[in-house]
């Protein structure tokens, strides 16, 4: 692929000097006739066209050829994936402008497209002149990025927190970057061509993002403002503009997560930002029962939607855990994922709002995040042990924290954070009836494992997976964990899973340390989309942070289906989501 040849427009395309000629367009449409016509039209505009008939294929191409495209045009109605989802993925992972197409011009649809981030919405039949102008979107985006970077003249990546850095680590970079370094370099944010104006973007490393979220939580989401955040963060080179734009994205992300949460009525999706509890101990199922009880008692008022889980006796465990996890201080209203963001305790420091779907374990109680309560069993310390063995260390390193792919919930290290899949395990409850009275995923490890669908295929990701078990176990030992829970495969094939991180959905990458109980990351694997190829490369979470990682990291937003997330909380010990994950 053409190397980045930076032009004034900053496009890395072989013919950037004749821009917009040579604009690299990816067209996605399941209708072969339309595909042929669009291809012809785009070629007439002197664009470089690649066509595909499936959303999955498109994502694959986009990932394979990082920086290989300038813009994506996709039909809204795709057979294998909702066009809007594809849109979000592309926006999150590749941050490319996406144009939606449809025969249907109904306002609500168009609005949906815009809300999902489409930079334009074209109605079929599409005319040449409409296509001739698409380069404007590309240019506009570049300019915005340049502006966002503020006066930072370093080449930096933005939104790494969203992407989980997977791509960075794996060397897949935005087209402007040629950096293929490891995480360290990335975090240095010094790479690329400093002279390129467009590159001056802030590289939001996981650490940086974590600081950001921490600051936000400290201030209180409602009162937050770029200046305040900036002051709190204490990062000298960061500008107010950088923070402002990041805050904007964060907000959007949260909103999306929240919506998804509500839609999914995630029971377990309680996110607690309640880091305030700051439990120092790692996740220990101290009162699993308690936790569960709370949940059962619907303390999580906010659980969006899925009361089933709450009702599910089984979910006891989860609930127990949840309690802890969800940082449900007995007295405090738990911010259940489903709840509106506002309802969250102000003290929540985790900073992950509902959108994050991560349930922060209430440190007080519990370190164990109560993943889905579906398991109905109180996690027990023994789980941990159980889990360990189950982890498959992809690369033999068993104690490596799982890289948090995309979002890490900035959690107080001392606290275990439990990210519950916000998606209430409606499915879970169905799936994992309390029959098992064992730590959900421990027991099911074997089962669960099998249930995971390979991450490779994004389509698979959307399948509800019996998450329970697998992932976590494996994750624990795998440095790179796609803890995109759904697939067991992910766990064992970190590499493959990495790619699939769909950040959009707020995948939470939990750095699972060895202690991490095999919380199976169920639910949607955020990582799903791309396998975790890159995960291995980076260490998102340093071991410390892992301490409390809740098993429930996940962001289910992105997935169509809910993931039952039966994570036994017990093993959450040591699992700490330090970083906020933005997964939308």
């Amino acid at each position, binding site marked *: 692929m053409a190397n980045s040849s930076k032009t004034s427009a900053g496009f890395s395309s072989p013919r950037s000097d004749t821009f917009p000629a040579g604009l690299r367009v990816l067209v996605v449409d399941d*209708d*072969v*006739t*339309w595909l*042929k*016509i669009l291809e*012809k*039209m785009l070629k*007439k505009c002197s664009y470089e066209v690649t066509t595909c008939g499936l959303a999955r294929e498109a994502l694959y191409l986009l990932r394979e050829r990082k920086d290989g495209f300038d813009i994506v045009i996709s039909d809204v*109605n795709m057979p294998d994936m909702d066009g809007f989802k594809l849109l979000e993925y592309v926006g999150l992972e590749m941050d490319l402008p996406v144009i939606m197409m449809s*025969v*249907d011009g109904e306002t609500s649809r168009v609005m949906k497209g815009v809300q999902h981030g489409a930079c334009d919405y074209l109605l*079929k*039949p599409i*005319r*040449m002149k409409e296509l001739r102008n698409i380069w404007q979107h590309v240019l506009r985006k570049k300019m915005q990025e340049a502006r966002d970077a503020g006066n930072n003249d370093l080449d930096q990546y933005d939104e790494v927190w969203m992407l989980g850095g997977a791509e960075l680590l794996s060397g897949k970079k935005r087209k402007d970057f040629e950096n293929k370094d490891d995480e360290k370099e990335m975090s240095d944010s010094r790479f690329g061509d400093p002279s390129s104006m467009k590159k001056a973007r802030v590289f939001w490393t996981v650490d940086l993002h974590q600081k950001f979220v921490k600051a936000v939580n400290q201030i209180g989401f409602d009162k937050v403002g770029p200046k305040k955040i900036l002051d709190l963060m204490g990062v000298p080179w960061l500008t107010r503009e950088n923070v402002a734009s990041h805050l904007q994205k964060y907000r959007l992300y949260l909103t999306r997560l929240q919506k998804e949460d509500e839609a999914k009525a995630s029971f377990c999706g309680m996110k607690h930002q309640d880091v305030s509890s700051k439990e120092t101990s790692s996740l220990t199922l101290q009162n699993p029962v308690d936790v569960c009880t709370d949940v059962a008692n619907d303390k999580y008022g906010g659980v969006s939607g899925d009361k089933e889980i709450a009702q599910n006796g089984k979910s006891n465990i989860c609930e127990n855990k949840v309690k802890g996890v969800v940082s449900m201080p007995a007295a405090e209203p738990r911010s259940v994922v489903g709840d509106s963001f506002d309802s969250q305790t102000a003290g929540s420091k985790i900073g992950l709002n509902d959108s994050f779907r991560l349930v922060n374990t209430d440190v007080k109680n519990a370190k164990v995040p109560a993943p889905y309560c579906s398991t109905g069993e109180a996690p027990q310390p023994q789980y941990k042990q159980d889990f360990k063995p189950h982890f498959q260390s992809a690369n033999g390193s068993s104690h490596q924290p799982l890289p948090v792919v995309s979002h890490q919930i900035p959690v107080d290290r001392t606290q275990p954070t439990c990210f519950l899949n916000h998606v209430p395990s409606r499915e879970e409850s169905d799936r994992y009836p309390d029959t098992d009275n064992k730590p959900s995923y421990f027991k099911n490890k074997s089962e669960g494992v099998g249930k995971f669908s390979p991450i490779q295929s994004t389509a698979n990701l959307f399948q509800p997976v019996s998450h329970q078990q697998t992932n976590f176990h494996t994750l624990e030992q795998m440095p790179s964990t796609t803890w995109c829970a759904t697939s067991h495969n992910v766990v064992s094939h970190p590499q493959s899973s990495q790619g699939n991180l769909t950040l959009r959905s707020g995948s939470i990458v939990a750095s699972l340390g060895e202690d991490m109980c095999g919380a199976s990351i169920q639910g949607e694997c955020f990582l799903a989309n791309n396998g975790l190829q890159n995960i291995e490369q980076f260490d998102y979470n340093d071991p410390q942070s892992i301490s409390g990682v809740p098993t429930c990291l996940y962001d289910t937003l992105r997935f169509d289906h809910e993931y039952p997330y039966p994570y036994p909380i017990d093993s959450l010990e040591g699992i700490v989501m330090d970083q906020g994950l933005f997964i939308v």
Partner: protein
Amino acid sequence: MKNQKQRQAAYMRRSLLDQGYLDEQFIHLEELQDDANPNFVEEVVKLFYTDSARFIRNIELALENGPYDFARLDNMMYQFKGSSSSIGARRVKRQCSQFQEYCNAKNIEGCKNTFQGVKQEYATLKTKLETYFQMER
């Protein structure tokens, strides 16, 4: 001779447009035709007919017996209509819209009748275009 053929082709084209068999999308397709793709329009039309046959089949099957899944019928027709719009098959599209209306009204008889209309327009256009392309060559 060639001139006459060309004239006939032009005439046919004109009448197809005037009679509403085709709309301006067809003209756009013609505009895309160039030296690199001298038979572009014909190729597209052929592709359309090949690919859309499955919609006709599936809808037909779905209309055979109850219980009738109107949402599914509507969705299939929606896709077919979208495809028809690619070549500018105006009359076909109109029938499709009508079919969709009957789906909304859950009127199976209306659907069945309209579907006959869809098939008819679909077939008529195919014949006319085949003739047209032959003349045009």
